[in-house]
């Protein structure tokens, strides 16, 4: 009896209920949230690195589920995000006045639970092929939700996502052929720097960089995220890109720490830096609000990769690891809050451009406050979780003398301030045209709750660092390994 | 080299001959009905010989029945589809489109 598998099984059961009941069953979410919250708390209470195999078949045949620090924190943040986005979507996809159900209204809920289950599966398992199936679950749901916005952007996202998955699958095939196992913990023990492993790692990294929308392979993200309906783009930007990133993390730091050349890590670090600069510059240039927020995702993902080279060297590497994890969570919460708030604001003025936002602070102060709180965390200003992450990364960078990374961290924060204060200051400007203010307390409360969570986590720095420090010990728990000929 | 050893390759060659004839017909004949005619007739007979050869090769009666069932399905499928394609070709010819 363990939360590791229930955290995937429960969303899948909810998906079945959602398919059966259709949008009449959307209130099921109110039952889902407490159950998932309970499971998440139970997961967080598990001792470090507890792991157990599915069914009763030892490795290398069976599949190992494990909750290390990164998984615990990300599953917790996913639960918080998904629950609140779900509550927001209760209104967004409510059936029409005559009770008529639309295709989007029906399909959103099964896809929502599929995405939630897939993300949890992606965070909790150490089996590379199982991660492939989880990636497919998440990508399928993501593309379908993006299609609810713009079909053309969804098609482009679909083709690119497929190429990414195929690249990842090719790597898994080569790894299995070479080591007769697809389990990360077993691979960690037997990894040897031969050609097949290097090719596999390269190809898988390329695939995952596509999935995580890292610069130069990020092209599909802005149009898809900007056009999707608000809850969908919140889910996409907050959760979907993180699954790709976590698998990349596991590959580089748990499966193949031995054979990863520092030069390769620096390349990823450089990619991250370029992503931060490119994403920020593009975000500054955008005229429409949702495109701006989408490009900010590209920039924030850059920070995660920027931290890769800092994690390996001895000094301050535990702080960099904690900083990276906390940044992933801070971005998840803040970006979800920002997309929901942006959705509300744009719906009120039914426009897309930044100019349409003028004067909103007087009309919808709470939503603008939520956008502001999210902006504070994204910029890494105290007292938010974003600040804790930026501070830890900055500290690790300066401790290792990586002045370039430190500079990127600071400049990135300033550029984020530019493109985030731009819409914020417009909301203070005067307004002439009237605003149709659909006062919906649930939808207003959702981004505010996420924003407050992102900011208040700033005070729980110590707890988050302790949990994330629970790095899984190299190699599988003894009980799980069967006899291998 | 018992009788079966001689018979088996012979049947196979006859089957292949009929397949070749069918494909040749497909290439040489001009209008659709003739091509369909060549294809369905020749290929199915060819398949019959190959099936016979396979049945002999495995020798057991159960396998022979299964192979006969396979042949039967192939015949049915060929017949039905040929008829549909012929109908479509005729209507297409009348309407002058090649769809």
């Amino acid at each position: 009896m363990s939360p590791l598998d229930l955290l995937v099984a429960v969303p899948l059961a909810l998906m079945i209920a959602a398919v059966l009941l259709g949008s009449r069953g959307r209130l099921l979410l109110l039952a889902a949230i407490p159950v998932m919250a309970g499971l998440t708390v139970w997961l967080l209470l598990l001792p470090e690195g507890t792991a157990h195999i599915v069914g009763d078949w030892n490795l290398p045949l069976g599949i190992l589920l494990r909750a290390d620090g990164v998984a615990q924190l990300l599953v917790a943040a996913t639960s918080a995000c998904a629950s609140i986005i779900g509550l927001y979507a209760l209104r967004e996809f409510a059936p029409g006045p005559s009770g008529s159900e639309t295709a989007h209204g029906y399909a959103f809920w099964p896809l929502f639970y599929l995405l939630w289950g897939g993300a949890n599966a992606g965070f909790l398992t150490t089996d590379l092929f199982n991660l492939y199936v989880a990636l497919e679950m998440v990508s399928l749901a993501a593309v379908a939700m993006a299609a609810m916005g713009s079909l053309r952007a969804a098609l482009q996202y679909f083709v690119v996502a497929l190429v990414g998955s195929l690249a990842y699958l090719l790597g898994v095939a080569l790894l299995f052929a070479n080591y007769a196992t697809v389990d990360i913990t077993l691979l960690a023990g037997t990894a040897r720097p031969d050609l097949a492993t290097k090719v596999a790692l390269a190809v898988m990294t390329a695939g995952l960089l596509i999935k995580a929308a890292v610069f130069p392979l990020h092209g599909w993200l802005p149009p898809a995220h900007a056009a999707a309906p608000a809850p969908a783009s919140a889910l996409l930007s907050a959760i979907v890109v993180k699954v790709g990133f976590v698998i990349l993390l596991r590959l580089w730091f748990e499966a193949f720490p031995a054979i990863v050349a520092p030069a390769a890590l620096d390349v990823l670090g450089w990619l991250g830096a370029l992503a931060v600069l490119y994403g920020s510059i593009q975000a500054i240039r955008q005229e429409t609000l949702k495109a701006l927020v989408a490009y900010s995702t590209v920039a924030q993902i850059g920070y995660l990769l920027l931290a890769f080279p800092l994690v390996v060297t001895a000094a301050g590497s535990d702080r960099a690891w904690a900083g990276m994890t906390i940044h992933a969570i801070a971005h998840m919460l803040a970006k979800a809050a920002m997309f929901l708030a942006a959705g509300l604001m744009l719906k009120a003025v039914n426009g897309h451009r930044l100019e349409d936002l003028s004067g909103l602070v007087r009309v919808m102060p709470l939503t603008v406050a939520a956008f502001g709180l999210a902006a504070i965390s994204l910029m890494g200003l105290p007292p938010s979780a974003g600040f804790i992450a930026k501070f830890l990364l900055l500290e690790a960078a300066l401790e290792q003398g990586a002045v370039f990374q430190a500079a990127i961290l600071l400049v990135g924060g300033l550029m984020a301030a530019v493109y985030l204060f731009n819409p914020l200051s417009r909301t203070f400007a005067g307004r002439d045209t009237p605003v149709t203010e659909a006062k919906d307390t649930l939808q207003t409360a959702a981004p505010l709750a996420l924003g407050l969570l992102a900011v208040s986590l700033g005070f729980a720095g110590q707890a988050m660092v302790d949990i994330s420090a629970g790095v899984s010990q190299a190699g599988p728990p003894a009980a799980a390994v069967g006899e291998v000929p | 080299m018992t009788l079966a050893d001689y018979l088996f390759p012979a049947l196979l060659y006859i089957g292949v001959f009929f397949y070749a004839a069918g494909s040749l017909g497909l290439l040489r004949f001009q209008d659709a009905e003739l091509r369909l005619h060549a294809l369905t007739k020749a290929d199915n007979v060819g398949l019959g010989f190959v099936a016979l050869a396979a049945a002999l090769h495995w020798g057991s009666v159960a396998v022979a029945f299964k192979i006969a069932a396979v042949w039967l399905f192939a015949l049915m499928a060929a017949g039905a589809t040929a008829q549909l394609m012929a109908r479509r070709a005729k209507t297409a010819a009348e309407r002058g489109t090649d769809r």
Partner: protein
Amino acid sequence: MPTLMHLYPLTGAALVGLGLYGIVTLRHPLRQLLAVNVVGAGIFLILGGLGRGTASTDPFPQALVITGIVVAVALTAFGAALVVRVAEEERARDDTAAVEATGDSA
């Protein structure tokens, strides 16, 4: 050292290269979908092909391949529906554009 057993995985590798070429050069989404299936088949050939011992074939990669094929067909089906829907929307936009161009309701 290449052996007889490497023949099928090598064709798999060839299919991966060919399929990727198709994805990059073919601009029509349906043709790209076809190319994606070719790449998928190539990858499965590599995965299954390298699991062949002298006497028997390893059932583990076979199961992975079957799972892979089913996932591939699910995604291809969704991709095809998406392509049709995009074409439909494109056509709807051309019709409305045509109506505005001619100025009268067609």
